[in-house]
């Protein structure tokens, strides 16, 4: 007998003495972007995705620095004339000191 499409199917009742299986049926594996428990949104996965994108498209220039600036920073400017009074003594970036001396107090807050 064909089931009547307008009558809701009977819910199978557990047979006496046999415990009814209440575990939900497993869903079929889907191809869609199911992300609830996936790695997609984990920060590490995000970083890996960015690195994968950039890695094959990143080229380290092998020529001299001045040539890089001339060719990759096109400009209408004449030759650069550096400011006369800009010695490193004039700014807060110390020169000729060990790097840890210079950045130590600053890094202290991060690493320790």
């Amino acid at each position, binding site marked *: 007998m064909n089931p009547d499409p307008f009558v809701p199917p009977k819910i199978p009742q557990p047979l006496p003495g046999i415990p009814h299986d209440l575990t939900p049926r497993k869903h079929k594996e889907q191809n869609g972007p199911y992300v609830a428990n996936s790695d997609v949104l984990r920060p590490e996965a995000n970083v890996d995705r960015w690195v994968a994108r950039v890695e094959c*498209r*990143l080229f380290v220039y092998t020529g001299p*620095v001045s040539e890089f600036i001339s060719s*990759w920073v*096109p400009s209408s400017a004449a030759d*650069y004339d550096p400011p006369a009074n*800009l010695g490193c003594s004039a700014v807060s*970036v110390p020169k000729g000191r060990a790097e840890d001396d210079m950045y130590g107090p600053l890094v202290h*807050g991060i690493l320790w």
Partner: protein
Amino acid sequence: MFDTSCQVELLNKLVAHVEEPRRLTFADSHLTSFATVHKTEHEQKPDIVFLHPGDRGAGSSTPDSTMLPSESHHSERYRRCAGVIEVKAHEWQDPIQDGKIHATKTAKETIAQIAKNARSLIMENMSCFVFVIGIYGHQARIYRFDRVGAIVLPSFNYVEDYTILGRFFYRLVHPPAPATSGIVGADHTIAPATKEEKISVLFKLLHGFSYGIQEGTMAVMNSHRIQVRYGNDASTPLIPCFTVGDCLSGSAGLFGRATIVWIVVFLEREELYVLKDSWRECHRRAEYTQYESLTLRGHREPNTPLADCVGSVDMGKEMSADGGYRTLSMTPDTLNRTRNRLLLYPVGHTLESFSSTRSLVEGIRDAVKGGRLLYCII
């Protein structure tokens, strides 16, 4: 993340002698949150930013900077930035060792941070290419990102030889002709509409397109002037059109076609158009030639469900090579991309604005038919 005031001071002194309208301003931003262009990503806090020439920071507005509107969740802070500097305390934190990305977690995070900054800068400013600087102890690197890849300068000691960065910033604020202001890498064919232009566009919308006063005002609030060609003949000069409202769609990727679509209006014409800006790979056919082929082969009937291409410009082919409208990072050259603009008519409806299920289904059907015509029959 640490105090970068000494670097900021050095950088500001490096550019102090540059004439006022072109001078960059460096600012410590390591405590400032910059929302990324993609809403699923975390905010960023670039260590140092350099603001566009003329923007002095700290509340000064930049009504004339070359920035474009975007969706509400996008950050406007990147629009004020000409570039970003990420500072690390030690030389060993340089993510590039022996010419490639180091395989450590720290190096990967640093590269991802730099790439995200580049993406936000290039997208928010609608630039052709952008520069991001990495400082690692006393060493520095300059990264140049365009829509296909990145070129990285070998590291140099920026403290001992500060003229390298000085020369770089000096050239950066003197873009090649025909640009007269802005920075190298910016698109000088895009600029915010002036107040007078916005009023003219608003008047046009109110009287020509049945916009209400509130709707029209919102639509022109972030209007921008974009140069485009009406017609497909390369000898026809570019003319300005004005964006209406936010972009209809935009790609959030760093590399690729980076397609962005607006509704635009010309002050001299009586219709609204769709403007599509994208970066086409050089070995692919120009999109407008496919529309032309349809007409030539007799596939264009009066009821063909396909928009007309009424204007196009291949900026990479027609503009100066220095403008950056053609990318340069990839080899072989055919993998590079060229910036294209396409003008389409008429403007369609968004899927949400259809009045009935039938018209929605017809719209999808026509899209399938149009796609087949463009890419299967030809």
